[in-house]
């Protein structure tokens, strides 16, 4: 792997790790009815186990793992001290009474407590999969969680197959240590890198450049130019949006044919131009001589007024696609 590839991979892993860790932390906030302490997110060196250094000296730990079943490959392991697990189980209890602190004895969690922790993990990882799905622009589904009690690092290494990449995020829940380990196969990294490239190409159009990818700070100036050139070749999806509205999840599938949905735009308002999901500018719909819709740009985000141009007349010819919705 070249230094540039390594940097891009590290950035993709960090983005994945940070978004997943934050989704898990927010779900834990809700379960524990208080903010959990966020720690570090880091890419685990290839020659190290992601479970090294966890506080097994204080007693066994509970590990809850899920793997993805659709969309991508890979999985997550949430490692927490037995005390943290029992406290989370108590917080899940449904009685409305959330414990102020972890229990002060070293008893192992009961089966029902382990089931409660598994359910908590299910809710956390579903939220995390949703966050990952946003980055990848597709649904990511998870399998039911698997829960086990581990005595030490060796048991953790044995329980979970090593992957080429891993990201570790630390938390403290009720003052007790927790660690989220994301086990990441190469295929996932490729998907993430591609998705982030696409997001980056959106940002380039808005003038944000490579910093939007979190890459510019990590590569040498010469390498940045090389990456910039690579990103310029990425094909992007372009569409115009007439307007939008919201309906409830319950009402959407019951809309009958003939229903009229009012949009948030007046008939003479400009329509928005989107590039890969990012609002890029606005303009007016016009008809070409061939009877097709086109968009005459009136405003481009971050660039002020530009001489009028028609979106379909891309210098790259077929490098863009048009969708009028």
């Amino acid at each position, binding site marked *: 792997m070249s230094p540039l590839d390594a940097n891009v991979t590290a950035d993709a892993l960090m983005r994945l790790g940070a978004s997943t860790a934050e989704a898990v932390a927010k779900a834990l906030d809700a379960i524990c009815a208080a903010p959990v302490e966020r720690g570090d997110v880091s890419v685990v060196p290839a020659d190290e186990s992601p479970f090294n250094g966890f506080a097994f000296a204080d007693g066994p730990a509970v590990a809850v793992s899920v793997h993805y079943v659709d969309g991508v490959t890979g999985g997550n392991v949430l490692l927490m001290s037995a005390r943290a697990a029992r406290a989370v189980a108590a917080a*899940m209890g*449904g009685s409305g009474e959330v414990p102020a602190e972890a229990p002060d004895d070293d008893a192992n969690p009961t089966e*029902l407590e382990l089931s409660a922790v598994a359910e908590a993990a299910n809710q956390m990882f579903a939220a995390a999969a949703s966050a990952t*799905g946003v980055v990848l622009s597709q*649904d990511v589904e998870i399998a039911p969680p698997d829960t086990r009690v581990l005595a030490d690092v060796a048991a953790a290494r044995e329980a979970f197959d090593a992957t080429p990449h891993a990201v570790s995020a630390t938390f403290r829940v009720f003052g007790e240590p927790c660690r989220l380990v994301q086990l990441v196969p190469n295929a996932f990294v490729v998907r993430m890198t591609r998705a982030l490239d696409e997001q980056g190409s959106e940002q380039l159009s808005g003038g944000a450049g490579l910093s939007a990818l979190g890459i510019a700070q990590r590569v040498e100036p010469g390498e940045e130019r090389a990456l910039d050139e690579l990103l310029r070749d990425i094909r992007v999806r372009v569409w115009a949006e007439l307007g939008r509205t919201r309906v409830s999840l319950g009402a959407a599938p019951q809309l009958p044919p003939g229903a009229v949905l009012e949009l948030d735009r007046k008939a003479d308002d400009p329509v928005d131009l989107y590039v890969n999901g990012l609002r890029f500018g606005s303009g007016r719909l016009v008809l070409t001589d061939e009877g097709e819709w086109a968009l005459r740009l009136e405003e481009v985000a971050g660039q002020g007024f530009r001489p009028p141009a028609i979106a379909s007349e891309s210098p790259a010819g077929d490098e863009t696609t048009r969708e009028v919705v």
Partner: protein
Amino acid sequence: MARMLVVDDAAFMRKVLTDALVSGGHEVVGEAGDGDAAIAAFRDLQPDLVTLDITMPEKDGLATLRELIELDPAACVVICSALGQETKVLEAIKAGAKDFVVKPFERERLLGAVEKALGQAAVQAG
């Protein structure tokens, strides 16, 4: 009071759901930990309402729901989903689920969804 079947692979969630439904005056006539057990219990017990988890091993909630609706098009099912499973919930409603709750949920929200679903089923039964 309605007769309920609680379906969830997590014993903990079955307990939480059962406690909440019983406290709301309902009778939980059965519990199931997977899709096949749910379908068997549904045939045997003919409950008024089923609470159904989405993420389950082997046969997930959506596949189970479709079989339940095939068995009884008037089956009254409330989906229990986690945050981030909106697409699944949408599919479930299209497949015939009467309502849904998102975990973690409050007891009142669950009981409200159950009452609404039972009311809807009663109207449809005419």
